[in-house]
């Protein structure tokens, strides 16, 4: 059973988000890059399912040439193959991204998908448009469920779970299928140093994606880091000596005791 995990290269942010002067991007001059957290789980699940069912796990990304770094992380986690739909680094809109991914996923025949299960992150960490997976599934005519936190392969179907208030919804999809997964689905493995070294030698297939034209569009004007109301916290004291002041706060001001 073959699987594909679709992933995205995103900045690895820390305590503060700083914008570039033109307010178009996050200033990444002092930042590393990573994979959206939900997608780390997509890779892990793709690998486990392929391993358990004699298949191949592929990681697929649309992004700049540097997204090779994230694909190699996937290979180091022991995915079998990696494909990069290489862009010039501009931000692609969800419909363009979905069309290009669907083209790549539909394979040489252009109709039958060449995989059994395709996994997306529920939403990307950075742009969070919440729609690429659904749009790809619609283009490939595949069943799709978002927000997946449990997944079991069962005799030609995939049984998936989604958390709802007070319980879990269970869906049963015929394969081939696509899902949008959330962190918590599994515990993504850390790649060993040896696996990382090996992944550096593996080849990555590169394709030039086509940016389709669509009627109607959503266009980014600028980004804004919202005004925070932050100022330094009122320091109640140092070490255990601060406890009487904390108790006063909890009892008199916050009334939680």
């Amino acid at each position: 059973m073959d699987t594909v995990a679709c992933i995205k290269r995103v900045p690895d942010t820390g305590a503060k988000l700083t914008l570039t002067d033109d307010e178009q991007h996050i200033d990444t001059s002092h930042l590393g890059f990573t994979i959206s957290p939900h997608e780390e789980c997509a890779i892990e699940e793709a690998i486990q399912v392929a391993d358990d069912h004699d298949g191949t796990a592929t990681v697929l990304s649309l992004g700049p040439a540097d997204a090779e770094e994230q694909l190699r992380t996937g290979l180091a986690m022991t995915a079998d193959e990696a494909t990069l739909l290489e862009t010039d680094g501009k931000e692609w809109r969800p419909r363009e991204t979905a069309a290009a991914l669907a083209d790549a996923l539909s394979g040489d025949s252009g109709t039958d998908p060449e995989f059994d299960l395709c996994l997306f992150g529920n939403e990307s960490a950075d742009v969070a448009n919440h729609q690429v997976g659904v749009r790809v599934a619609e283009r490939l005519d595949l069943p799709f469920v978002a927000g997946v936190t449990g997944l079991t392969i069962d005799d030609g179907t995939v049984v998936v779970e989604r958390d709802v208030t007070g319980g879990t919804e269970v869906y049963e999809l015929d394969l081939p299928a696509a899902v949008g997964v959330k962190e918590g689905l599994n515990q993504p493995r850390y790649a060993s140093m040896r696996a990382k070294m090996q992944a550096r030698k593996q080849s990555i297939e590169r394709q030039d994606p086509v940016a389709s034209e669509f009627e109607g569009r959503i266009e980014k004007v600028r980004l804004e880091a919202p005004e925070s109301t932050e100022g330094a916290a009122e320091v109640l004291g140092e070490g255990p000596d601060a406890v009487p002041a904390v108790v006063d706060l909890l009892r008199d001001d916050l009334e939680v005791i």
Partner: protein
Amino acid sequence: MILSFVEHAGGSPEEPSLEALTLARELATATDAPLEVVAFGTEASALGDTLRAYGVETVHRVADDRLDTYAPEAWAESVAQLLDATDPEAVVAPGTDRGQEVLAHVGAKCDLPMAANCLDVELSEVYELSRQRWGGSLVEHARLDSDTKLLTAAPHEFSPETAVEAADTSVQPFEPTLDESAFRVSVDRVEESDESGVSLGEARVVVGGGRGIGGPEDYDKLETLADSLSGTVGASRAAVNEGWRPHDDQIGQTGTKISPDLYVACGISGAVQHMVGCKGADNILAVNTDPEAAIMQKADYAVVGDLHEVVPELNNALADER
């Protein structure tokens, strides 16, 4: 016409849907357009009683018994057919799992762009909107230009407000034509959670532990503190990745978003991804050894010190208070 997608439990609208409806009414009022609702399930006929107060003129109850169970493609295909029949200016859905999923399907079926987790919309020739990125730690200002605008409303960002004047709401059945194939994805069953106690998202007091906790056994102190404050325990992503706590306890962008009266953040540095998960807290008390940690700028109150000393002492003091 502005159309809003309303989720409901037995004919009683869900809170995020009322938030989305409030955004939808702002758009309807600004353009002097009627406000209408699409809802699913037999019990949607009871929605009229509540939605009158929100100024809803028409509730389109999608009439097909098979739709009582959630089926994303069938629900979206129904909305797409309603769009064909009524040609709304915009569709506003709640930024919930179902709201995002159904509207994304509608976007794909009708070949329309969609703006997720909107915060504000200003009307000009196009929609000048702002929406959340990075779980809400960044705002994107964008232009949405399309025949029908598809929007979801960011959860917890709008207060549901009733209209100045109640409407004379009519509930009308809408009958879509749906192939059996549209039902290939539907909820098979719902398994009730057997967990008792306060859920993280609803707790009034949350005690969170991060990397500074040092190991799973040290959460006992936080459990004791949470118990004496009638609260519950949460964790940062760093602590969950260490395997100290289950993912269900994770607070942050890819975990639970909390909105307690008090959040006690112990040994948590205050990364952006964590802070978007607790920005709904009325008060934050940080316990951290590092006075320069980011959390010290974001908290309301702080104790500079080792949580392994401060929390047990606090637990003793609270035991004496009783």
